């Protein structure tokens, strides 16, 4: 069965600025099976966002191949890529002037980029996506009036309107409170189960990915430091080495999944 997403020996380097060496992704290879929930974790500047840019052809690799459903991204047109993968960014630029419904409608662009106006079918898709994300009543609002959780769901609705089989989320729970985090996870699981969406999650929240993801990729300085099931990757010595911070890994009381915590030094030095 073809993988939903595959990186084969990908090499990429940002151009160096002055005396600091350019950041590189080195010989990265991994694959995400169709219908999986896949997590990408790693310290800051380890290459997580760069990965998203590479798979969506915002950047192109110097060597190697990136395959979406078996097809080389390098040979696909942008609209075609957008129909296969929807990226949910963390936020929109400040001062975004369009209302929620128009933003969600933009998710339909890749399906008919040459049209001047969206079709009725496009509008129906947008409404459906807003309903799935639970934001139908926000359709006429501008973004600055919404809370962090609501904006996140708006961005998700736009990605859902794209109807792509692969969903990539960049730090989806970064600005969410506990309630909204739980909601977000529930929604992603539902989409995965009912709509068969393949989901790739980039996150700093190791416990979230431990709970939700079937498999994980741990990145360090642009290379894979670990790949596999959460129990295998979220291991004390690996994490301590990659994050350069002492870490303790326990088991969650109900789900038995790994729980990662920083091994805080005793504040009173006992």
């Amino acid at each position, binding site marked *: 069965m073809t993988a939903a997403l595959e990186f084969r020996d990908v090499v990429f380097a940002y151009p160096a600025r002055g005396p600091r060496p350019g950041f590189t992704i080195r010989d990265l290879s991994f694959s995400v099976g169709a219908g999986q929930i896949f997590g990408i974790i790693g310290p800051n500047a380890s290459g997580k966002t760069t990965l998203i*840019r590479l798979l*969506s*052809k*915002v950047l192109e690799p110097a060597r190697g191949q990136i395959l979406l459903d078996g097809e080389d991204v390098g040979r696909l*047109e*942008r*609209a*075609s*890529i*957008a*129909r296969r993968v*929807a*990226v949910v*960014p963390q936020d*929109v*630029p400040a*001062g*975004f*002037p*369009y209302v929620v419904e*128009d*933003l969600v409608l*933009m*998710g339909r*662009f*890749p399906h008919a*980029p040459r*049209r*001047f*106006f*969206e079709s009725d079918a496009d509008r129906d898709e947008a409404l459906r996506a807003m309903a799935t994300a639970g934001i139908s009543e926000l359709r006429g609002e501008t973004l600055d009036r919404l809370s962090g959780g609501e904006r996140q769901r708006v961005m998700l609705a736009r990605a859902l309107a*794209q109807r792509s089989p692969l969903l990539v989320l960049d730090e989806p729970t970064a600005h969410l409170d506990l309630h909204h985090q739980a909601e977000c996870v529930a929604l992603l699981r539902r989409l995965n189960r009912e709509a068969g969406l393949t989901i790739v999650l980039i996150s700093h929240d190791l416990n979230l990915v431990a709970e939700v993801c079937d498999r994980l990729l741990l990145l360090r300085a642009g290379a894979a430091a670990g790949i596999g099931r959460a129990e295998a990757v979220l291991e004390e010595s690996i994490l301590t080495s990659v994050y350069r911070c002492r870490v303790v890994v326990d088991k969650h009381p109900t789900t038995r999944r790994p729980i990662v915590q920083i091994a805080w030094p005793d504040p009173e030095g006992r």
Partner: protein
Amino acid sequence: MSPRSRLIALLAVLALAAAAAGIAALFIGSARLSARAVIAAMTTGHGRSGVADVIVLSLRLPRIAAALLAGGALAVAGVGFQGLTRNPLAEPAVLGVSSGAAFGVVTAQVFGLRVGVLEAFGLTALAFGGAVVAGTAVLAIASRAGGLPVHTLVLAGVIVGIFFSSAITVLISVVDFDRLGGVIYWLLGNLAPLPAPALGVFAATSAVGFWLVLGQARSLNVLALGEEAALQLGVDAERTKWRIFTGAALLTAATVAFAGPIGFVGLIVPHALRMTLGPDHRVLVPAALLAGGVFLLAADTLARNLVAPAELSVGVITSLCGAPFFVYLLRSRASRLER
């Protein structure tokens, strides 16, 4: 009502307004003509007095056409530049693009090009060249890590504008005094009754520019998500940017070539439209074409008649409206940025 029918209805209303304004302007002028004389000149072409014919058909009508065209072109260029730079303070004059075009035109005039169809193309070409050089310089100076922050954009525009104005001054000082007078007057920005061939070239060039900008209207909307997000939605960002830039530069160049540098139309009209019609470029671009024409026609009618029988240059009127409006914008945007 679907968006398409709403847009058509809006454009119909604006077109009617433009037609009404055009017709009304026929009756206003320093030469006091009776309404009957004007109507006679328009309908039969052989009015009661030959003077009325000349005034209405060879002076007022071509000038009204030029005003409608120039206003529309500048307003569309303004919408284009603002969308391209994602910056509401962008417009051909602020970006120094008008000055670049003016430099091109002054160069042409100083080296003796006259007004005929072929020469009109040459004039437009040199204006376009100047506009492109200036615009590119501004974008290059002001770009910061893929963005175009407010302050650097305005600063870059001012710098480039000053540079080309100085270059024009150098040209002027080097040239014969006899050829000077026309150039200096021209630099104030004046709508003159254009002969039909010139009007034709003006209209054709503007049509191309308008078509280029309008074609990217939907992509412009998506670009508001940020360039990276737009790319991820399938927008060919590079092509969109180039087409809009070329279209807006063409519109600016054509206007400067045939009406001289006129400022602030491209700033005021897009903003007024955005405040009333919303941010959708598919609506703003065609609406700007019509509303810009009406605006400049009104300004020009004022310019012609305020100090009759003398004339103010229309650039003076738009600057008088524009400067306070610009300050208002800068302050409201700055206060929003500080939040």
